[in-house]
């Protein structure tokens, strides 16, 4: 997030796209509710009529995967109606002309054809966004989990830049992170192309710093990302994996392929707190500690570093994960320092990470609201709002983008579009939440949301058990006939191990990030074969 969560309540307008905030980020949603209560306008773009959409001044219920069209049409309107911020563009950006040219062909009327969103609504949203000062964009995986996820993000960035909504309080460009420490994991360099602090592994001068700090020579080559690892595993090129705290057999797209890969591995080690789908493949299982049993930091969506503190001991012989990692390194011949506690690990991590250099446990102790990076030195108060003095990188380039359809579109055999996501009550593979009575009482098992017309065509009643299939697999679910989804689209949560949504999803990844296309794949739903054919007929006719 370019801006902090605390700023949301003072928004004048919120453009929420591809984020079911009330379910995935409930407390950020509370701030959005507060802003709305205080009179802020709310525009929600989502294929589903999610809770926020019900509360919105405008709901743009686009077809899944057509974000580039919608956002380009908004840019089209802003430029056409001369609502763009020429001074900001001139001072802080480059390549505006390329985008201005590109979006000329993306008229709202044409966008209406593709996205299903009325042209007038697109115009209204664009006008509101461009003419409101404290207007923030909020997005989540509905934007990124596409083969054109990066393009979607570029389109959003183009909107932010052309309206000068960067470096403005309660505005900005705000991806909401899905997990407690996505930001922190990336900051820490758990990524194949960056050392801690987004410092490139292929940059020799950077590599030198780390080689000297760690006392070894380091690989000069970029590593492969998770999506690629899964594929290389299946191809037999990746022979061993060390999986810490992730149930890849549930969370990766097209998990059948992941299972093939894990079976092909010569060695699999899992570091976990519960047995899960992935530990079935493990040669060694190392019992780790949950968040209540160890010290450390989590970095949240708004780049805020906050302390995690040990409240109880890990059960039995389980140990904090950081200690285990140190032992593995030492046993493998690397001279890992003997850190007395996580505090010293953080000190080393921060010293090598320019954005965190001014942070320490002592400072985090003193700042109960946490510290936002960048925090380059000990006297720096942290940076809740980025780019206040113009883009950090100097000038920000516009990125002209062409629309590309999703990798797998519905056809006669698989006539429905499946999107997957999270619910309020469960979390990821639900190993934690399914062990608590409330989430289970609210959502016992897997379900799909389906439009009443699709349900009628398929002869499916609310509560029926159905079979959902894609080219990659078949699972069971309960059908919830729901006013939330579009005709021709179904939605399914990702949480349930016995009926894994990711047996269905497409592992085609975004060219740049490798993120899988969790939001669009073609499926069929049936109680009987005839019903499926009937639907295919309607869809094609």
């Amino acid at each position, binding site marked *: 997030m370019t801006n902090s969560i605390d700023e949301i309540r003072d928004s004048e307008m919120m453009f929420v796209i591809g984020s079911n905030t009330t379910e995935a980020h409930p407390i950020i949603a509370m701030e959005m509710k507060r802003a709305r209560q205080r009179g802020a306008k709310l525009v929600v773009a989502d294929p589903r009529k999610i809770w926020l959409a019900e509360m919105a001044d405008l709901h743009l219920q686009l077809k899944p995967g057509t974000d580039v069209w919608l956002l380009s049409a908004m840019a089209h309107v802003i430029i056409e109606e001369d609502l763009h911020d020429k001074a900001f563009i001139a001072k802080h950006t480059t390549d505006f002309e390329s985008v201005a040219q590109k979006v000329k062909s993306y008229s709202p009327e044409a966008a209406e054809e593709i996205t299903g969103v009325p042209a007038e609504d697109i115009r209204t949203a664009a006008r509101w966004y461009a003419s409101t000062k404290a207007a923030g964009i909020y997005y989540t995986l509905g934007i990124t989990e596409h083969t054109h996820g990066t393009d979607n993000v570029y389109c959003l960035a183009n909107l932010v830049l052309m309206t000068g909504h960067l470096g403005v309080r309660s505005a900005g460009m705000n991806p909401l992170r899905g997990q407690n420490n996505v930001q922190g994991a990336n900051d820490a360099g758990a990524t194949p192309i960056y050392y801690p602090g987004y410092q490139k592994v292929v940059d020799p001068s950077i590599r030198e710093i780390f080689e000297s700090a760690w006392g070894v020579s380091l690989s000069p080559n970029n590593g492969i990302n998770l999506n690629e690892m899964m594929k290389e595993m299946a191809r037999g090129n990746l022979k061993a994996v*060390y999986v810490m705290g992730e149930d890849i057999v549930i969370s990766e797209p097209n998990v059948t392929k992941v299972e093939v890969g894990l079976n092909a591995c010569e060695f699999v080690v899992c570091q976990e707190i519960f047995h899960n789908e992935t530990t079935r493949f493990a040669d*060694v299982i190392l019992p780790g500690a949950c968040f209540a049993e160890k010290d450390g930091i989590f970095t949240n969506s708004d780049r805020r570093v906050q*302390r995690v503190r040990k409240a109880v001991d890990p059960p039995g012989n389980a140990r904090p994960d950081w200690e285990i990692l140190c032992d593995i*390194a030492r046993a493998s011949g690397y001279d890992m320092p003997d850190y007395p506690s996580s505090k010293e690990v953080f000190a080393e991590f921060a010293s090598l990470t320019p954005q965190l250099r001014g942070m320490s446990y002592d400072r985090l102790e003193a700042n109960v609201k946490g510290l936002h990076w960048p925090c380059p030195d000990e006297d720096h108060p942290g940076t809740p709002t980025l780019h206040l003095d113009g883009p950090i990188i100097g000038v920000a380039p516009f990125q002209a983008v062409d629309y590309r359809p999703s990798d797998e579109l519905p056809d006669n055999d698989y006539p429905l579009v499946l999107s997957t996501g999270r619910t309020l009550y469960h979390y990821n593979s639900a190993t934690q939440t399914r062990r608590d009575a409330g989430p289970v009482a609210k959502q016992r098992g897997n379900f799909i949301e389906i439009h009443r017309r699709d349900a009628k065509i398929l002869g499916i009643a609310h509560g029926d058990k159905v079979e959902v299939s894609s080219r990659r697999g078949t699972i069971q679910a309960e059908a919830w006939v729901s006013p939330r989804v579009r005709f021709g689209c179904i939605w399914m949560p990702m949480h349930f191990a016995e009926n894994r949504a990711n047996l269905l999803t497409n592992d085609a990844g975004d060219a740049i990030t490798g993120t899988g296309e969790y939001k669009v794949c073609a499926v069929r739903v049936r109680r009987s074969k005839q019903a499926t054919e009937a639907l295919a007929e309607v869809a094609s006719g």
Partner: protein
Amino acid sequence: MSDSFHIKLDGKSVSASSGETVFEVAKREGVEIPTLCHDTRLEPVGACRVCLVEVAGQRRLQPGCAWVVTPDMEIQTQSDRIERHRKVLYNLYKSDHDLDDARLPLETGNGNQLRELCQTVPDMNLAPVEAPRSDRPMDDNPYIQFEPDLCILCARCTRYCDEVEAVNAITLSNRGSATTIATAGQRSLIDTTCELCGGCIDTCPTGALIEKKAPKNLVQLGGTESVRSTCNFCGVGCQLNLHVQNERVVKVTSPEPGETLNDGNLCVKGRFAYDFIHHKDRITEPLIRDANGDLQPATWEEAIAATSAGLNRVREKYGSDALGFISSSRCTGEENYLMQKVARAAFGTNNVHQCAAT
């Protein structure tokens, strides 16, 4: 935007800004005005009447939580009139409340601020009014329990449910002395729009809303040791207080409103989904798969050695880039740092990643 001016608070000149309430000014000045129905996250309603003060020029006592100050306003927070008001008001509350043997409002595991207030005034020994206030005996939700005889109808819970959580699952129902907190049709919260965030429990000043899972006598046992931490679910980064009793996390609450980014709020997962911590299914010892494919318990020395050997075997056979290290956005920053350091420094590969996109 806000003009600054002076008002007189208990005879003392203090500065205030336009839009501020008497309560806010007094709090800043260290003058304590008691209240039960006020919560900074909610629109003031002045319903509990505890915070009434004297405003010069006003015939009636006025609620400090809602009364907006203007230049030169004179406020009295202490007087014989206010003292009498508090005495009778607190005693009226007592006549409508479950009392203990000491004739003080009963205290649940969730505390009771009315009890504290009642200790500041003499007991009038008013006869109980036995208000016909209904509860929800059939409510089988696993987390939230409502005790109508401890409820003072300040409506913090219903207002929270409306204004903050915005799910409108509970409501004030009925009228007069029969007023109660209800769901539509008095259904179980599970069968309503309730999202089990538990904010109602958190905001309840009298412990009429109780967390079913937490020990009932948490307060009486002298409370718990509480450890401030960060929630381990989504990316918001809510701050939590983990309450520990006998080496177990027995309750999770949010720090006070205003202190942290979550402003006193939590969701169902953050507040209630902590059973996993002490769940019997936790893996408690290292396991190594034997020749038959069965997992066998092992010592840490054995497990570390086996891990190291397994990884090094592959590395020697196929090279460093045949290894993949999958870190976790659920683990701490330090652990992610160490995981990539292990991959890079100990095993020589940049093949390290985590579920960055999910």
